[in-house]
Each structure stands twice: as structure tokens, then as C-alpha cells.
């Protein structure tokens, strides 16, 4: 018998639309999102190089935002599949900052813990941790940690590559660290308390 | 029969006007020949009480030079008005407030401080003048300053206005001739309230510089342009020349020698606010439509208020800057 998730139950009981969603996303987005200007032409979905792996095209996502389908939007894999190639951004006839909206949705999804596959969020988080400890990204640590957690099976296949990177001196096994880590930490701490609301 | 009486009085002003009158050379003799000089402190000794003693309207012609800066000026203005048939606001100070009028941009206190307590003043005992001072002999008083500088017409009824800082000597001579001709019944006085001793167009009319349609991309102070084109209209070279809005009559003296007109002859006929004319004229020929660009061009005029109201502030619609009113009311 098919599993009935709580949200789906809730959805049936209350069909209320969350009209504040579009605005919320727009406000949380860097720059001026122009989200409300979308004319649903599909230029974004058509331009997207990774659309084939997306559950929703960006255009659909925007329509869902308008309809206030918060959970469905934040659960969609679309933002995580976005490769930020900005094709949609420059082609959008309404100048919607699509790529940045995707970043916003990722952030919201993480906070709401609504993404299905934790691979991407974790990678981002791992990356952020690295940066917050060293001030620089540390590919080896990143890759190893990440792969161990998410693609243990890929590791053998990856080994020659990783090894190649190392032997060819393209991946150092010791992280670089910036001098004034304290300064950076201070900035990031303050920043975290200032998260965008308006 | 006795000659008609002539008077000239010097109130708040620099005295240049008096010099200008002397500057008419032998013409001054005609004055003496045709008039009995009743009261002219600069030229000859006289007492106010003598004037008070005169019958009302006893003086035919009074040339009033200077602004109304203090109570005494005002008092004398009323007195001479009463005693004179024809009262002429003579020179820029009397007609429009002139340089003294610029004091209207500052609060009283500041005026005093600058006058008595700045480096330019040698005031070892730090004396600060009081209207009333007690001395062993009793109280002595000096006239109190009015809250702001007024023009003559703002305190008494004026018959004629003669602009200029100072009025050009040839214009003074002409006016004197006119009055004498009137005395001899050879001419008519112009209608009351008219401006005499000046043209009724603006300086540009007398200016010989070449003129084209104007499109100003930048304003410069004259020293920044070296040398300015001697043939071409100064304004077209971006030099803020007040000529276009300033009454003619001076033969465009300043532009003729390469300096921009600063507007001492005041507004042209029928103009209500001199500065407004310049604001609108200069702004209209700025060659830009983008606010930022326009502002950039306007930055070329560092002190617009001073530029546009150097002589006319006391007679402008605002009469003064707000700080002049700090004392009275709000």
C-alpha cells in the first residue's frame, strides 16, 4: 500500500496557497531577482544543460513558487542540479536572476531540511567547513571525505585518478591555511548573525 | 527767487556712490549753479536739526545712497522722505541692498563676531558694541541694527530708482541734466516709480561680444580659462556671466574688459526676482538631460546663491536667508 506522507495528508486537508513564498524567495535572493516578472516562456528550461536530470524545469519551479507550493519546491532536486552556467540568465527575456534564485532555494531547502538526496548539501557543507577551518578550499580533504561518505563504490574507479592527481603534484595532501584565520572567522560569525531577511 | 534745494544722504553703504557723483567733474558745478545744497554730509557740514527745521517737501531732490541697516538709517529715511518732493534711491544699496544685503544670509550674532572678533579686526580689549552704554556722564546710545538689511523702498515710498554700484558717472550727469531741464520746463519727469539712469534691456544689448546659441557643458571660474576668448560671449565659454539678466546702462564695462558681469545694475524692467532669472537662464542652456550629468555641470558654480544674489538679495522674493530670521519669530 502506497506511503501517505504527512505533507500529502496536510495538503488534502488544507488547500491554502502560500502567496508570500514568491516574495520571500525574491527578498532572500542576491541582487534584484525580477522573479515576479516571469512570463513562463521556458527559455530557462530550454537553455539548461542539465535539464534532463531535473525534476522540474526552472520555469515550473517559478510557477510553483507563485502557487505557494513551498514543500514541493524545496524538495525539488532542480536547484541542486543547476550547474550555474548562466545560460538561462543571459537569455531570460525578463531578466530574472535565475541562477541566484537557485542558490536561494538551496539555502532554504537546507534550512527546511527538505532535500531528498543529502549528497549535494553535504558537499556544500563539507566545502564550507574546509573553508571555515583553512580559509582556502582543500581539494584532497574535500574529495576524500566526500567520496568516502557518498560514493564509496566510486572510490576504486576514482583511485587511479586521485593517485594521478597526487603523483602529478596536482593534489596536495596537506591543506594550505591563510594567515589571519581569526579575522575571517570574525567576519563569517558576524555575517551568520546578519543573514538576509529584507 | 531762491534755488531749489538738493540733498544727498549716505546710509548703509561703502560711499562709492558719493565718489561717483564727484566723478562727474565740472558737471558738479551745474548742480551748484542750479541747486541750493541743503544737506549733503559728505560735501558740506550740516546738522540733522537743520533738516528737521525745514518745511515738509522743502527739498526738491534727494539722492539717497545706501541700504537701511540700522534704526538711524530708517529714521533718516522717514525724515528725508517727509522733507523731499523727489526721493531717489541712488545706487545699488538703496535700490536692492547690494553687498551689505548679503549680510542677510547670516545670523546677527555671526555678523557681530566676524566684525569685531576675527583676526581682521584689531580689538585688543575685545569690545563688543552695545546699543546703550553707561558712562560716568550718563547713557550713550548708538543706533541698533535692524534684524536685516532693507532697501530704501522697503521702509519709505520712493519716487525713482537709479541702479549701479556705483551708478555710472555719465548716467548721473544725464539725470542731473534731465532734472535741470525739467526745472527749466524743457522736459517732463518720467512716471513715478521708474528706473532712471539706466537702459531697459540687459547688459548683453551693450555687450559687443559674438553670440551663438548656447549649449553649456561645463561652468568655469574665469581664472580657470586662460585666456578666455576676447571675442566670444563669456557665458558660451562657460563663465557664469550675469549680463543676460542685468539691466543695461553700464556699457557692458566688465565684459568689455574680459571680466564677467556680476550684476550690479540689478534686474531688468518688470523682473520680480533677479536671481530667479539667472537660475532659469543658466539652467535652460545646460547641455545635459541626465540628472547626474546636470549636477556635475552645476558643480561648476560653487556658490549659486552668492552668484545669483550678490547685489539683489535684500530685494529678492526671499529678502534674506532663513538664518537672518533666527532672532525674530521662528
Amino acid at each position, binding site marked *: 500500500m502506497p506511503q501517505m506522507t504527512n505533507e500529502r495528508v496536510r495538503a488534502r486537508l488544507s488547500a491554502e496557497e502560500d502567496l508570500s513564498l514568491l516574495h520571500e524567495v525574491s527578498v532572500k535572493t542576491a541582487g534584484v531577482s525580477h522573479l515576479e516578472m516571469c512570463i513562463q516562456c*521556458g527559455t530557462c528550461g530550454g*537553455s539548461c544543460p542539465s535539464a534532463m536530470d531535473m525534476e522540474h524545469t526552472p520555469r515550473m519551479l517559478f510557477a510553483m513558487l507563485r502557487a505557494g507550493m513551498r514543500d514541493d519546491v524545496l524538495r525539488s532536486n532542480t536547484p541542486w542540479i543547476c550547474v550555474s552556467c548562466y545560460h538561462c540568465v543571459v*537569455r531570460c*527575456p525578463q531578466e530574472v536572476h535565475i541562477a541566484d534564485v537557485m542558490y536561494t532555494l538551496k539555502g532554504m531547502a537546507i534550512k527546511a531540511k527538505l532535500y531528498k538526496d543529502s549528497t549535494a548539501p553535504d558537499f556544500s557543507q563539507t566545502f564550507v567547513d574546509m573553508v571555515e577551518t583553512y580559509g582556502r578550499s582543500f581539494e584532497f580533504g574535500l574529495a576524500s571525505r566526500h567520496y568516502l561518505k557518498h560514493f564509496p563504490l566510486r572510490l576504486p574507479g576514482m583511485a587511479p585518478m586521485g593517485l594521478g592527481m597526487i603523483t602529478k603534484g596536482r593534489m596536495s595532501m596537506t591543506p594550505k591555511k591563510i594567515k589571519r584565520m581569526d579575522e575571517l572567522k570574525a567576519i563569517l560569525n558576524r555575517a551568520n548573525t546578519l543573514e538576509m531577511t529584507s | 527767487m531762491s534755488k531749489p534745494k538738493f540733498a544727498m544722504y549716505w546710509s548703509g553703504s561703502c560711499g562709492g556712490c558719493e565718489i561717483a557723483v564727484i566723478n562727474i567733474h565740472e558737471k558738479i558745478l551745474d548742480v551748484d549753479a542750479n541747486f541750493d545744497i541743503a544737506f549733503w554730509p559728505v560735501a558740506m557740514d550740516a546738522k540733522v536739526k537743520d533738516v528737521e527745521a525745514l518745511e515738509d517737501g522743502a527739498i526738491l531732490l534727494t539722492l539717497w545712497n545706501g541700504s537701511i541697516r540700522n534704526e538711524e538709517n530708517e529714521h533718516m529715511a522717514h525724515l528725508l522722505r517727509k522733507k523731499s518732493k523727489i526721493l531717489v534711491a541712488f545706487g545699488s544699496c538703496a535700490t536692492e541692498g547690494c553687498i551689505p544685503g548679503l549680510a542677510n544670509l547670516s545670523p546677527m550674532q555671526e555678523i557681530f563676531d566676524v566684525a569685531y572678533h576675527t583676526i581682521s579686526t584689531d580689538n585688543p580689549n575685545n569690545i563688543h558694541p552695545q546699543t546703550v552704554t553707561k558712562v560716568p556722564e550718563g547713557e550713550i546710545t548708538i543706533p541698533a541694527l535692524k534684524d536685516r538689511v532693507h532697501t530704501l523702498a522697503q521702509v519709505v515710498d520712493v519716487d525713482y530708482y537709479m541702479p549701479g554700484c556705483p551708478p555710472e558717472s555719465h548716467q548721473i550727469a544725464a539725470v542731473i541734466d534731465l532734472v535741470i531741464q525739467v526745472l527749466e520746463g524743457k522736459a517732463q519727469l518720467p512716471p513715478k516709480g521708474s528706473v532712471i539712469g539706466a537702459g531697459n534691456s540687459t547688459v548683453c544689448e551693450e555687450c559687443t561680444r559674438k553670440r551663438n*546659441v548656447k*549649449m553649456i557643458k561645463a561652468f568655469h571660474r574665469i581664472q580657470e580659462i586662460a585666456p578666455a576668448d576676447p571675442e566670444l560671449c563669456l557665458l558660451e565659454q562657460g563663465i557664469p556671466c550675469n549680463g543676460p539678466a542685468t539691466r543695461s546702462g553700464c556699457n557692458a564695462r566688465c565684459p568689455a574688459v574680459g571680466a564677467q558681469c556680476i550684476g550690479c545694475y540689478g534686474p*531688468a524692467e518688470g523682473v520680480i526676482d533677479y536671481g530667479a532669472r539667472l537660475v532659469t537662464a543658466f539652467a*535652460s542652456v545646460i547641455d545635459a538631460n541626465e540628472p547626474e550629468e546636470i549636477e556635475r555641470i552645476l558643480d561648476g558654480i560653487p556658490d549659486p546663491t552668492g552668484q545669483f544674489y550678490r547685489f539683489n538679495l535684500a530685494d529678492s522674493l526671499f529678502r534674506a536667508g532663513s538664518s537672518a530670521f533666527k532672532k525674530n519669530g521662528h
Partner: protein
Amino acid sequence: MSAKKLEKIGVYVCHCGSNIAGVVDVVDVANWAADKLGHQGVVIARDYKFMCSSLGQELIEKDIKELGLTRVVVAACSPHLHEKTFRTAAKNAGLNPYLVEMASIREQVSWVHTDKVVATAKAKAVISGTVSRVIENAALEDLKVPINPNTLVVGGGIAGIQSALEIANAGFHVYLVEREPSIGGHMAQFDKTFPTLDCSACILTPRMVEAGTHPNITLLTWSEVMSVTGFVGSFNVTIKKKARFINEPLCTGCGICQEKCPKKVIDDVYEAGLGYRKAVYTPFAQAVPKYPVMDKENCTYFLKGTCKACEKFCPTGAIDFNQKDEYINIEVGNIILATGYDLFDARRVSNYGYGRLPNVFTSLEFERLSNAAGPTNGDIVLRDGKTTPKSVGIIHCVGSRDKNFNNYCSVICCMQGLKFAHLVHERTGATVYNFYIDMRTAYKAYDEFYQRVLEEGTLFVRGKVAEVTDAARNEHEKGKLIIQTEDTLIGKQRRIPVDMVILSSGLQPRYDAKDVGKLFGISCSMDGWFTEKHPKLDPVATMTEGIYIAGCAQGPKDIPSSVAQGAAASARVLDKILQKEVVLEPIKASINQEQCSGCRICNNLCPFNAILFHEDRMVSEINPALCQGCGTCVAACPAGAISGTGFSNEQILAQIDGLLMDVNLVGA
């Protein structure tokens, strides 16, 4: 201000039913005016249910006659509604209409405020202002200007041809100026016209011939307007007749010169770059006039000094290499601008690959391709000139509805796309796709055509195409043009391989529209289309009296609308011609020659070139017929030498005083 004798003023306060009376205490206002504005000269103040009714008007007329009113103030609605009404009434009663002013106490008071006390007070202030103002009003006479019955039509496209014919048939003379060698415009390039699919040439050519032979039409092709001076009724226009290097009277239009000319040139005007012409050429067979033109830039003789093949073979010796440009001066009373549009340059949308991928065509190219008289005699083939496409994709909104390019809808593209689909289907049987954002098939018989094309099996994909590429991702894409788009109705990205892509390029203003606008003293919208006087109620007139617009110069539109506008514009012109003279509102500026110092501040402030400078007297003067009465120069004159009727300094300053009367009360 000055102590002149009091005017006799009548103040009339309208109730407008309850529209005003409901909020403003009209009775109180009237009494107050009679009482408190007496010192201003108000001798009578009345309130009445409907001032604009005939009874209300009679009331005013009666007072004017009996009380000898010299000024009238009507406190009612907006002057834009009834100023004319009351001024006419005053005129009937023998009072100069311009001595009547209205105080808008409905639009500006009763309708927008609720507090009765406040509203009543404001009404009083407004009336007080109007009374002070009307005292300063001057009696004005309307300006009457005779109309020259000749008309200039600029642009020989279908809109221009239509206008010219309408006026010419009504018996008045028309100068029809066209900068290309032949009239006909874009329509002459088309094969079929939607939605009826009748052959463009078949319906256009007769009109062209009629225009070319009409006794009342002077056709000036290969010509351009250089300067326009004057004003409605009497414009003076200079036209440059570019040298054709053909002696027209001698030329029979036999075409031998073109035949013999050895120089082939890509024709990027008429053939949209898809075909060739000679250096001496008539753009197309049915060209009107029949005379060819020589293209100096490409003619071997002009380039190298030798050849003259045309001259050798011309049977009538009509070739004249020494011909010079000619300047013609004409006098006209009205002008119609029908200068048309340019096609959006599809290369700007580089993701559609036009200019890089050979088999991407523009709509205009396709028109030529499908045209029986075109380079391929109507065979729809790929750029190789032989292969017939098996699949064709038609992309809508190219450069339109796109903030990166033109942010407006080009109107014709949807129907054009359908037309193309039909033609391709009919001539090649190829599979046709239409890619659209929204199908816009408004107007008569348009949607039916959409139905028909659906029926023919054209496939419609709703989605703005993202890109056209030749980068194949798999075997069946190889060697094709792949149209990548989101099919927004299934929410999936699709890659559709086709042989040919047609871009429905949008319409845009002529590259020189802004200059032309300046030349004729009319304005352009942000996008660059000529702006009409009123978007709904006056669509073919402009802000400049005597200048009208028609066709795509005013905005994107299809053939029927262009023709309709052409006719409409000529109707407006005929109406002017038949009036024999125009009445101009006497709201004008004038310069006091005594006071003017010739500083020339005002000289370039007038967009209508109404201000002229007399070098001799060193003063400026205003041509009243050219002056539109904006008052900018009045406000600018540093010497206060310029005054403006209807809105004089005295009137406005007085109005300010009046409006602030209450504020200026002692103790207020």
C-alpha cells in the same frame, strides 16, 4: 499688484448634482465669494445645480449682458471637460472667451476629499486663486492660418500609397516621396498575405501603378526630405532627388541596361540579401516608376572609369553619367509620415545562429524564398539552393518581447509564422514546427487561419526557443539543426532536429526614425516609434499640427491596419484642406523687441524652431504660427522680455497669491 480699476467678476459655483454639493458647501462658497472677494471685483456669485446645462449657461450669459461682467469664473469640473462650453457661452454673450476661467472643484476637491470643512475651505482657496488669475487674463483672438491644399506623403509603402491615393482621388495634389528606387515598400517583397493568402503583388501592383500614373500625384522616388520649415497650412519642404544617372524622359524602361551591366551585386534591400541585382537596376519587375537607378558605389565606370556597357547598349541614349543630385522645393499644407519599419537584426540573438548556421533564415529571407518572383522562383530550398527541407522550424518572437532586445510584441509574427507554416506545408510537404510563447491571433479571420494550419498538421510547441545549434549529441541529430527548447506544456526540454529554421524577426523603428522625428518636429516613444497625439482617440495625428503618421512608423502592425491608418490620416488631412484655414489656440509666446538684449539664451530651447534670431538687429523673435505655447522660453528669458499669452507671469503669480490668501491672513 498694481492699482488698476477693478474688473467686474462673476463667480459661478456648480453643484454638479451632488457630485460637488455632496462634499463642498456650495452655497457657503458662493456667499463667501460674493462677500470676501468683493475687493477683488467679484460683483456676483451664484451657485447652480448644473452650470453646464443650457439653463446654467444662460444664467452666465444673462449676467454678462445685464451686469456687464468683464471676467467670469466657473467653479465646477475640470477645464478639460467644459472650458470650451463656458467660453463659447461667454462669446455668445459678447465677452471674449479667454476672459473665462474654470476652477476645478470637482476633480480636485469634491471627488478626492471627504472632510466637508476641509473640502469647502480648499474649494474657496482654489476659487480665490482663479479669481486673482482671471483678473490678469487678457482678451485673446484665435489665430487663423490658411491651408495650402497640397500634401506631402513621406514613404511609398502600402500605408503611404493608400494615403496618397485617398487624397489624390479627392482632387488634391500629393507629393509622394520614397527613398528607394521604387514604391511598394515591404509589401512588395512578400509572396502571400495572411490570413486570406492572396498574392501580395496581385493586390499591391495595381495600387502602385495607380499612384504612379495619377494626375494628382507627383512621384519622387530615389528621393529624401532634407529640410522642413514653416507650420501647419504652409510647410516649406526641400527634397533631394538623388541622381539616377538615367535621363527619365528618354528611358523606356526596356531593361537592356540591366541585362548588359556586367556587375552583379548582392541585393540586401529588396532581395533581403538572398539574391543579386546589377549595378544599374530596377529592384523588381513591377517597379514604379519603371526607370532604373545606377548604384554609384558598385558601378564599374564610377569605380574604374571604364565599362559604360549600359550607355553603349541603351537604345534611347538615356544613360547620363553626369547627372547631379537635384534639390526640389515644395509648399504643402499637411504632411503624412509613413516611413515604415526595419527588420530586427537576427544576428543579435547569437544563440539562434543566424549568420553562423547557413540554414537559419530570417522571415524576410523566407518571404523572398517563397516568392514566385524571388531568387528561387518560389522553390523553398536550403541555402545550397537545391535541397528541399524535410523538416522546418519556425521560431516566434525573435528580438521581440525580450528585455535584451525589443521589449514589445511585434504583432505580426504569430500570423506570419502560421503563413510560413502553410506555405512550407503546401510547397514541400515538410514537417513544420511553430515555436511560440503565446499565440496571438486576434482580429478578423485570423484565428480561423490558426485552425486551418493546425488542421494541416503543423506541430506547435509552446516555449521560447533557447538555442539553435549544430552540435549533435547523437546520431539522429548529426547534420541537422537542433532546436533546443523547453516544451512548457509538458515541462520537459526537447531537442528537435530540423533541416531549416525560420526566425520570425520582430519589427523595429527605422534606424533613423529619431532624426526623421526631429526633422518634422514630432516625438518618438522610448522604443523609437512615432508618438500619436492620443493613443486611442487621435491615433494618426501628432503633437505637431499638420503632421500625421500612418503605418508601421507609428508601431508594429499588419497590412490591413496600415492601410486603415493610411486612409485615416488622409481623412484628417482632407478635413484640414476643406476647412481652408486652421484655427490655432492663441496660447503663444512673444518677445518684447525693446527689452530683448539678443543674449540668445532662448534660441535653442524651442523644439519647433519657432524662435528666430535677427543677426542684423541682434534680437530674437517668435513665429506665432510655429509656437506651440509650451512657455519654456518665457520661463527662460533672463531679461523677462518674453511673455506668454494664456499663462502669463502676471496670471500665475496672481493665482499663487490667491491660492495662498487664507494662509496670508494676519495671525494665520
